């Protein structure tokens, strides 16, 4: 087991596109580290560079104390799980599991022992003599995970391993992966574009955009104080409300009249946007204390909660999360009240967190 250090990683393709733009990551030993971002943000390229499948243009990668820049994938002592499973189609499960061990040249008894161990851990008993074609997607991915396990690598690299599974299976596998990682304590780098996956799995999350790291933090840090407008929009479902505000008399005033407590150290003379989570707002009866007038644009009843989209001072996409006991009709005039703490405030032009 080992941590992974990525220093100033830069990847430029021959056609000139920059996939990864001077990325620094410091992944701790035994950490489950998630790289999150939209497609084309460079997360997969970074992972493939760590794996050695892609050669970086500049920058260093260290696994443990070893500088692995010039090592081929096989000598980096890592295992990778792919989106499309990549099980060898002509081999039965048993042989798929044994394959990397045989390639390493381990003695037969050891191979057998490790294969059985991984099979037990991933509960593959009845699947051992089937070929990949006769396995369902979920089963294939479990075999792929077991295949990564048998090598007892210093780190696991996961490239969107759950993307091809249906929703229910995805949730199960997510739990399984998290449990497995906790049990083994092996460093894991997990790439995904699904923020729910990132939030629920990661010890820490790195949010990438256009080849750059936007923010690195624990799931709660990333949720509570997104480091940029991009992160604010990417994390959370429904996403954070971004409300234009002005500083008047030491308070933040929105166009619709909502007044928010400003964070300390707020600069003056800048166009500002306040990031307010949907659960930090309340829909109230019109004229309730501390509320400003608003109108319900739509209501999505999700059973355990209702997401109200309200029109607030001309901004028609303010989302509010409310318990299902509260009912307002579409088009109803209501009140809107801020009930959370100090919001995160962003500069409209630099798109960065200012305070």
């Amino acid at each position, binding site marked *: 087991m080992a941590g992974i250090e990525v220093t100033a990683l830069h990847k430029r*393709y*021959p*056609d000139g596109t920059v996939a990864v733009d001077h990325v620094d990551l410091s992944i701790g030993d035994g950490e489950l580290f998630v790289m999150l971002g939209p497609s084309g943000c460079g997360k997969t390229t970074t992972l*493939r560079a760590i*794996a*050695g*499948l892609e050669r970086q243009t500049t920058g260093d990668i260290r696994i443990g104390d070893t500088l692995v820049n010039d090592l*081929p*994938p*096989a000598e980096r002592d*890592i*295992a*990778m799980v*792919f*989106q*499309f*499973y*990549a099980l*060898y*189609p*002509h081999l039965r499960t048993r042989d798929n599991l044994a*394959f*990397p061990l045989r*390639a*390493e040249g381990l003695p037969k008894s050891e191979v057998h022992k490790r294969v059985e161990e991984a099979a037990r851990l991933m509960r593959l008993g009845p699947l051992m003599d089937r070929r990949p074609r006769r396995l369902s997607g979920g089963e294939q991915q479990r075999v792929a995970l077991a295949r990564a396990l048998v090598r007892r690598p210093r780190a696991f690299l996961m490239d969107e391993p759950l993307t091809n599974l249906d929703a229910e299976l995805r949730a199960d596998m997510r739990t399984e992966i998290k449990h497995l990682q906790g049990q083994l304590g092996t460093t894991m780098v997990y790439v995904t574009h699904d923020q729910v996956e990132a939030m629920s799995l990661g010890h820490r999350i790195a949010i990438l955009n256009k080849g750059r790291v936007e923010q690195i933090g624990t799931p709660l840090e990333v949720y509570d104080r997104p480091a940029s407008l991009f992160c604010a929009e990417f994390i959370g479902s429904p996403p954070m409300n971004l409300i234009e505000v002005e500083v008047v008399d030491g308070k933040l005033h929105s166009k619709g009249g909502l007044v928010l407590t400003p964070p300390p150290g707020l600069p003056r003379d800048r166009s500002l946007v306040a990031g307010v989570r949907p659960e930090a707002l309340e829909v109230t009866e019109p004229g309730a204390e501390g509320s400003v007038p608003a109108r319900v644009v739509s209501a999505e009843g999700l059973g355990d909660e209702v997401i109200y989209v309200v029109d607030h001072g001309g901004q028609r996409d303010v989302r509010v999360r409310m318990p299902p006991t509260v009912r307002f009709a579409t088009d109803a005039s209501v009140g809107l009240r801020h009930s959370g703490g100090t919001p995160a405030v962003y500069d409209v032009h630099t798109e960065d967190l200012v305070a």
Partner: protein
Amino acid sequence: MAVSVDDAVSAGPVRDHTPPARRFGGRGRAVLEVALLTVLAVVMLFPVLWMVETSIKENRDVYAIPAKFFDFKVTVDHFKDVFVSSSGGRSGLSVSFLNSVVVAGVSTVLATVLGVPAAWAYSRFALKAKKDQLFFILSTRFMPPVVVVIPIFLMYRQVGLIDTQLGLILIYTAFNVPFTIWMMKGFVDEVPAEYEDAAMLDGYTRLQAFWKFTLPLLVPGIAATAVFALIFSWNEFVFAIFLTSSDDVRTAPPAIAGLIGGTTVDWGLVAASSVVFAVPVLVFAYLVRRHLVAGVTLGAVRR
């Protein structure tokens, strides 16, 4: 045609549970379809049938007027003439057939050996101006090959490739490589690159990963591509007639064409040699038919 017309009608604003196609359809339409297909089949297949018939008719029946469709005497003399010369040795035609086998076979193998790795490289690697390169490769097939016959002839004369098998093999390979690259690239694109990635993590080099894991999955595609390349080389006529002159080197198409044009034409021999010429490709295509169908449809289905 009939189908598209009916579709156009049924797509109209008429709100009816039975689309018009169904009402007019049924028996009448089926009969019409069968009749049209029969006419088409006869038009297409009659020359083939006539060729086969002529090849087994006695000479008297070949020239009989009115033509004899059924009651003719069957003989294999023409086929014997294809392979054995009148003096008893090997006939010129049999040498031509052997030349065809060598030229078409070697050029197909060469085009496959060069084209498949190239297609793999174009599919897997980020290259500078990849699209332009691929377009350039494709552009060599834009013009009809005949256009370059004269320049190629002059170049070949300079380097002494005129009237050699090697010359024909090279030119056929040159024509088949772009085709192979383009067709195979489609097949390689369909095979997930993850197989190779996984193999590389397991300790194989990139080439080994391609050889051991990707290549076996490409076999249907290679078979389909090779058949097309083989058919091209086997049938090629223009370059063969321009670039070769001696009977030792000449391939079958110009040799068979050379049978026609004397004072008398031995139609029986022409037909028999044509049959012999057609059979290998038919047999080959039949042997790889499963791969051929899989290969032709493979690229059409997206994952």
